[in-house]
C-alpha cells in the first residue's frame, strides 16, 4: 500500500517542520534569556591584543576587530531581536486586532473606513515609514520598535477582520445574540477565542518579519544604537571589514537566517496542527 505510506510520510514531514522549527525557536528564546545571567565573555571586554582571533575553546566563534567575543555578542543580540520583535507584535496585535474586531462587528461604513486606512498604511513601504519616523525621532531601538509595530497593525487588523467575519455567520453567535449579549461581549467571549489560533500563527510569521526588519534597520544605523549589540549592526561593522575579515559577516547572518527559518517552520507546523483544514491547500 504505497499511498498509505506516503500519507504517513507526509504527515511526518509536517510534524517534522513543527519539531525542527520549535527546537530552533526555543533554542533562540533560551539563548536570549540566558544572556541576562551569563555570557562566555562580557561584550564590553575590548582587548585589541586578541582581535580577529580564530574560533577556540576560549572564543567559541572567534573575536571581532576590537577583540570582543563574537558568540557573546550574538547571544546578547538575540535578546535585542526578541525584545524588538515582541514589543512590535504587541503594538501591532494590541491595536490591529481590536480594529479588526470592530470592523467585523460593525460592518458598514466603520468597516469601510478602517479597512481603507488599513490599506493605505499597508501600501506604504514599512521601511519608508520607519525612515520617516527615525528622521524625526532620531535613530534608536525604541523608534524601530514603533516603526515595525505600526507596520504590524494593518496585518493584524486584516486577518482579525477576515476570520471574525466568518465566525459572525456561525450559529452559536446567533444563540449569543438572542441571549442578549452585545457586540463587545460577543467579540470578546466568542469571536476572539475562535480566531486566536489564526492570530497566533500570524504572530509567529510577524515575529520572523520583525527580526528581519530590525536587522535591516540596525544595519542601516537607524535601529539599535551602540554599544548595545544587535545582529544587524554586527553585519554593518563586518561590512567595513569585508576584505580583511570576511568571517565576521558569516555568524550574525547565520543567526538571523536560522532564527527566521525556525520561526517560519514553527509557524507552518503550528498552522497544520491548529487548523487542519488549511493543510491540504498549502
Amino acid at each position, binding site marked *: *500500500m504505497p*499511498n*498509505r505510506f506516503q*500519507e504517513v510520510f507526509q504527515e511526518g514531514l509536517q510534524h517534522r517542520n513543527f519539531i525542527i522549527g520549535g527546537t530552533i525557536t526555543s533554542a533562540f528564546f533560551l539563548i536570549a534569556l540566558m544572556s541576562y545571567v551569563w555570557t562566555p565573555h562580557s561584550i564590553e571586554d575590548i582587548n585589541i591584543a586578541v582581535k580577529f582571533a580564530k574560533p577556540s575553546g576560549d572564543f567559541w566563534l572567534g573575536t571581532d576587530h576590537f577583540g570582543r567575543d563574537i558568540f557573546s555578542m550574538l547571544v546578547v543580540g538575540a535578546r535585542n531581536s526578541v525584545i524588538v520583535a515582541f514589543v512590535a507584535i504587541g503594538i501591532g496585535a494590541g491595536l490591529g486586532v481590536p480594529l479588526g474586531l470592530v470592523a467585523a462587528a460593525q460592518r458598514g461604513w466603520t468597516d469601510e473606513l478602517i479597512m481603507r486606512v488599513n490599506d493605505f498604511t499597508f501600501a506604504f513601504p514599512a521601511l519608508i515609514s520607519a525612515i520617516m519616523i527615525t528622521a524625526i525621532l532620531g535613530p534608536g531601538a525604541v523608534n524601530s520598535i514603533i516603526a515595525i509595530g505600526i507596520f504590524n497593525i494593518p496585518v493584524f487588523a486584516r486577518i482579525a477582520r477576515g476570520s471574525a467575519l466568518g465566525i459572525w455567520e456561525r450559529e452559536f453567535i446567533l444563540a449569543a445574540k438572542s441571549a442578549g449579549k452585545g457586540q463587545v461581549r460577543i467579540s470578546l467571549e466568542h469571536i476572539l477565542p475562535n480566531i486566536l489560533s489564526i492570530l497566533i500563527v500570524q504572530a509567529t510569521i510577524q515575529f520572523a518579519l520583525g527580526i528581519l526588519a530590525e536587522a535591516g534597520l540596525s544595519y542601516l544605523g537607524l535601529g539599535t544604537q551602540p554599544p548595545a549589540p544587535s545582529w544587524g549592526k554586527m553585519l554593518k561593522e563586518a561590512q567595513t571589514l569585508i576584505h580583511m575579515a570576511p568571517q565576521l559577516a558569516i555568524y550574525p547572518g547565520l543567526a538571523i537566517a536560522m532564527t527566521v527559518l525556525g520561526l517560519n517552520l514553527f509557524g507552518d507546523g503550528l498552522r497544520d496542527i491548529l487548523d487542519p483544514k488549511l493543510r491540504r491547500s498549502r
Partner: protein
Amino acid sequence: MSLLEIENLSVSLPTPKGMLELISNVSFSMEAGARLGIVGESGCGKSLTALAMMGLLPDKAAARGAIRLNGENLLELDEKMMRSIRGNRIAMIFQEPMSALNPVKTIGSQISEGLKIHLGLNKTDAENKTKKLLDSVGLPLNRFPLNLHPHQLSGGQRQRVLIAIAVACEPDILIADEPTTALDVTVQEIILELINEITENSGMGLIMISHDLGVIAQTTEKVLVMYAGNAVESGSTEDVFQHMAHPYTHGLFAAMPKSGTRNYEARQRLYSIPGQVPEAHARPKGCNFAGRCFKATAECAVEEPVLKPLNGKHKVSCFHPLTEGNPQ
C-alpha cells in the same frame, strides 16, 4: 468485435480511509453508432467509469480489467498514445458548464485547440472549422464571434460550446456526463435534442450518463444501471424500462416524478428508496443493495450476485429478480 468493450473494470482510489475499490467488475460493450445510457443514484460510480474510459482518473488511481476500443486495451496505453485518443476518438462533455470552460481563453481558441492537436489544422482551417462547429451547435457566428469569453455566455450557451469542443474531431464515442443536470429546466430539453441530433447525424456513439431516467429514455437504446460501483442491470432501454428486474431499478422508477405529478403534494408523496448507498469502505458482504431491498433474503447478505442473462440481452445481478424479463 464491438467498438467498445469494457471488461471487468475495477477502479480503486486513495481516500482518507485508505485505498478503496469504488468500481467493481463492471462490464459492458457498445457497437459503433450505438446509444448507451448509464443510470444510477449520485455517487454510484458513473463519472469514475467515464473518466476511466478517458484515461483521466486521478493520479493515484488504479484501474484493473480492460477497456477495449477496437480491440486495443486503453488501460495498457501510455500517456502519449492515450492523448491521441482523447478528444479524437473518445470525447466527453462534463456536468458543470459554468466551470468547465477556461475563463481567460476565448471560446474560439478553446474549440480549435483540439482541431490543431488531432487534425493538425493550421490557423485558418481551424478557424473555419470552428465557425462551422459553433453554427452546428446553435451559436450563429453573427451573434457569437470566436473572440467571446465564457463569462459572456449563459449556462446553456456554454454547454453548447462544450459540445462543440467535444465533437470537434468527430470522435467515435461521445460521453455526456449529466450534461443537463446543472442547467435550467427550460434549456435541458433543448440541449438533449442537440446532443441527439449531432450524434445521430454523424453516426457517433453516445454514452449518456444521468441519474434521471427521463434523460435516458429520451436519448438511448441500451442502458446500464449502476449501484454502489456495480452494474446491477443492463439491456435495451425498452426492456429495462418495461420489465425492470432489479429491485434497485424498480426503486429508481418509483422515485421518478411521473409526468402529470406536477403539483407539490404529489411530489412530496413520491417514493424514495429507504436507506442510503453504503459507502465504499463499508460495503457489505454479499449484495450491496441487500440492506435497502424489499426482496432481500438471508442468501443476499452472504453471496454476491453477478450480472447474468435473464432473457436474451437483458441481464440482471439479483437472486430475486422482479420479472423473468421480456417474454419474446
